[in-house]
C-alpha cells in the first residue's frame, strides 16, 4: 500500500521528521503513538501533501507511484485520505455539496461516472444511517459551528463516503465521548477490507481496544523509536513514553 523510506521533512528550516521507515501492507492497520510534538501530525500532513513542509530526503511509494511527486488533490483522488486533527470550517458551503464535489472529482479521476445530486443524496443518507450519525450533519455548512466531536465524526463520514484506499486518522478519537468513540471505531471497522489500510494516530489505548491494530509504532522526535504488536499500546499506557525514550537512550 504505502512504503515510506528514510523520510526527512522540515518546516521553516527546522527538521521535524528525521528519518522514518514504515511499510503498511494492504488490509493492515498501523497505530502511531508518541508524545506531543513528536511529529505525528507532521508525518500525516507530509503524506497528504501539505506544501508548507519540505521533504529533504527519502521517498514514499503509494500503490506503486511516487507519492511525493503528486499534487495533494491527486493524492486524494488516488485514494489517500487524511482525517484532520483539527478539521477546518468552510462557512456557507453545505457539507453535502462539498462531499458530492469531492466524490465526483475522485470518481472522475478513477474513470467512474459522476453521481447526480439525487443519487448522491441517497448514498450519503445511507452512510449517515450506517454510521449512526444524525442527518442534520448533511444540511449544515461544512464544520461551521460544529462541536469538536461533531467535526471528528464528520471526518469519518467523509471517509466512509470517499472510500479511500489508505486512511490516515490523526487523533480522530481525541475529544470524543464514549458513544462518539464507538461511532468512530465502528466506522473504521466497517471499512476495514483486504485492499484498504489505515494509519491511526492516537494517544489512547482505548481506541485500539476497538480498532485492533496489526502494528503499533512509537514516534519520538521525528523517528520511530519502537514498533510492536497491539500489546505495545497497553505497555505504553502503563509505563508512559519515558520508558521507550529511556530505553532507546
Amino acid at each position: 500500500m504505502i512504503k515510506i523510506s528514510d523520510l526527512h521533512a522540515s518546516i521553516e528550516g527546522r527538521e521535524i521528521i528525521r528519518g522514518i521507515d514504515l511499510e503498511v501492507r494492504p488490509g493492515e492497520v498501523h497505530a502511531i503513538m508518541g508524545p506531543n510534538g513528536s511529529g505525528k501530525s507532521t508525518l500525516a500532513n507530509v503524506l497528504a501533501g501539505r506544501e508548507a513542509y519540505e521533504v529533504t530526503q527519502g521517498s514514499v511509494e503509494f500503490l506503486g507511484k511516487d507519492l511525493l511527486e503528486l499534487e495533494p488533490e491527486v493524492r486524494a483522488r488516488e485514494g489517500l485520505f487524511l482525517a484532520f486533527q483539527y478539521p477546518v470550517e468552510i462557512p456557507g458551503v453545505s457539507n453535502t455539496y462539498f462531499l458530492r464535489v469531492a466524490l465526483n472529482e475522485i470518481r472522475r479521476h478513477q474513470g467512474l461516472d459522476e453521481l447526480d445530486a439525487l443519487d448522491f443524496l441517497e448514498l450519503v443518507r445511507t452512510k449517515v444511517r450506517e454510521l449512526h450519525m444524525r442527518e442534520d450533519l448533511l444540511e449544515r455548512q461544512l464544520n461551521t459551528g460544529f462541536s469538536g466531536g461533531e467535526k471528528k465524526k464528520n471526518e469519518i463520514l467523509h471517509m466512509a463516503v470517499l472510500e479511500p484506499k489508505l486512511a490516515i486518522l490523526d487523533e480522530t478519537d481525541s475529544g470524543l465521548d464514549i458513544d462518539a468513540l464507538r461511532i468512530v471505531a465502528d466506522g473504521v471497522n466497517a471499512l476495514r477490507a483486504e485492499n484498504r489500510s489505515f494509519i491511526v494516530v492516537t494517544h489512547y489505548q482505548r481506541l485500539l481496544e476497538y480498532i485492533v491494530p496489526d502494528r503499533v509504532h512509537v514516534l519520538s522526535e521525528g523517528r520511530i523509536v519502537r514498533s510492536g504488536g497491539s500489546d505495545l499500546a497497553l505497555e505504553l499506557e502503563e509505563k508512559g513514553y519515558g520508558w521507550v525514550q529511556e530505553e532507546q537512550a
Partner: protein
Amino acid sequence: MSDKTHLSEDEQHLEDLTNADYKYGFVTDIESDSLPPGLDEEVIAAISAKKNEPPFMLEFRLRAFRKWQQMEEPDWAKLKIDPVDYQAISYFSAPKKKDGPKSLDEVDPELLETFEKLGIPLGERERLAGVAVDAVFDSVSVATTFKEKLTELGIIFCPISEAVQNHPELVRKYLGSVVPTGDNFFSALNSAVFSDGSFVYIPKGVRCPMELSTYFRINAQNTGQFERTLIIADEGAQVSYLEGCTAPMRDENQLHAAVVELVALDEAKIKYSTVQNWYPGDKNGKGGIYNFVTKRGLCAGRASRISWTQVETGSAITWKYPGCILKGDDSVGEFYSVALTNNFQQADTGTKMVHIGKNTSSTVISKGISAGQGQNTYRGLVEIHRGAEGARNFSQCDSMLMGDRCGAHTFPYIDVRNPKAKVEHEATTSKISEDQIFFCQQRGIDLEEAVSMIVNGFCKEVMSELPMEFAVEAQKLLGVSLEGSVG
C-alpha cells in the same frame, strides 16, 4: 520550500485565477447613428427631438442639464478617478435600423450573435425560462418579448422611450420622483441625456408571473451609456426585475451613469437584482468602465417592500448606493450585495436606508471580496427620522481579502433621531485560509475549485437572494458552479 514562499506561491495562483481573461471583449460592427461628441442645450434638444418626445420631457431634461452645469463631481468616495471629459462623449447612438423589430426574426443577425456570445440566447430564453427580455443595445431597445402575455394582465414592460410616447401620464408623475434631477452630479447628467432604459408598471393587485429582465450592453465606441429605469408597483402588486450586463473590451474608459427609480405603493413588493460585469480594465488597470449609478427605491405605501440584490464583479470603478426610502409605515427595505474587486478595480458601494414611517425595518448584508490590488469600500447610511417609531435596522458587512496588496474599508454612517429605534451593525474581515484550501485539496478538489467554493460560501447569504436564473450566472461570475447544490 519554506512556509513563506509557499504562501506567496499560493497567492500567486489565486491571482492567476482571478486574472482569467475577460471573456466578453469583442466589438459588434454595426453602423451607428450618432450625435457628434459634446453637450449643450442644443444637443439635449436634438436627443429629445430624435426621440420625438413631448414638451414635458424636454423641460425635464433641460432642467436637469442646468442643474448639472452648476454641480461638481463628488469627491468623497474612496476612489481614484481619472478626470472625465464630458465634452468628448457622444450622447446619442442608435443602431441604424429604422422601426423597431416586432419579433426576433427582424432583429439584426449580428446583434443576435452578440447576444449569443454573451450567453444570452434571446430565443432560448423566450422559450425556456419564461423571462421577458427587453434588451438594450447601446441606447435603443431592440427586442422585447413576452409583451402580449404581460399586456393581458395590464402590465406595462417596455423601453422607457416608448412609455414616454404611450404612457406620458405615468412617466410624468413618477420620473424624477424618487431621484430628483438635482440629486447628484451623475443623476443630473443622466436626467439630461438619458437615451433609453426600461419602464415597468404593475397594476393594482397584480403579481407579475415572470421575472422581468434586461441585458445592457455598451457598444459604439466613445458612447456614454445613460440608462434610465423606472418601475412602479401599484397597491398590492409584486414584481421581480433582473438587470445584467457585460461589456466589450475597450482601451479608453467609458462612462456609465444609470439611474433607476422604484416606487412601491401600499403593500407592493419590488425585488431588483443586478449582476454587473462591465469590462473591468486590464491587469495593469488600463481601460474599464466607470460605473456611476444612482439607484433608489421609494416605499411610498404602507407595508410595502423593496429589496435590492447586487453582484458587482465588473467595472474599473463602481460608485453605487442602491437605497430605500421607507416612507410608508411598516415598510421594509433590503440590500444584499457582493462586490468583487481585482487587479486595479475600485468599488465604493453600499446603501442608504432612510426610515421615515413607523415600524419600518431594513436589512443590509454586504460581502466585499478584494483580490490583486483591488480596493473595496462599503459605505452605508442608516438614517432614522424622528417620527420613525419602532424603526429597526440590521447591517452586516463582511470583507474577504485575497493576498496582501488589496484593501477593504467599511464606512457605516448612522444617524438616529428617534431614541427608541434599534440599529445594529456587525462587521468582519477575513482571509481565505491556507488550511481551508488544503482541506479541500485533501478531499480531491483542486485549488481553483476550492477558491471558488470558499468564495461562494462566503457570499451565500447574498447569492441565495438572487432569482434562480440569475444565481447561476452570478456563481459562474464568481468562478464557481454551485449549480444543483443540495442542502
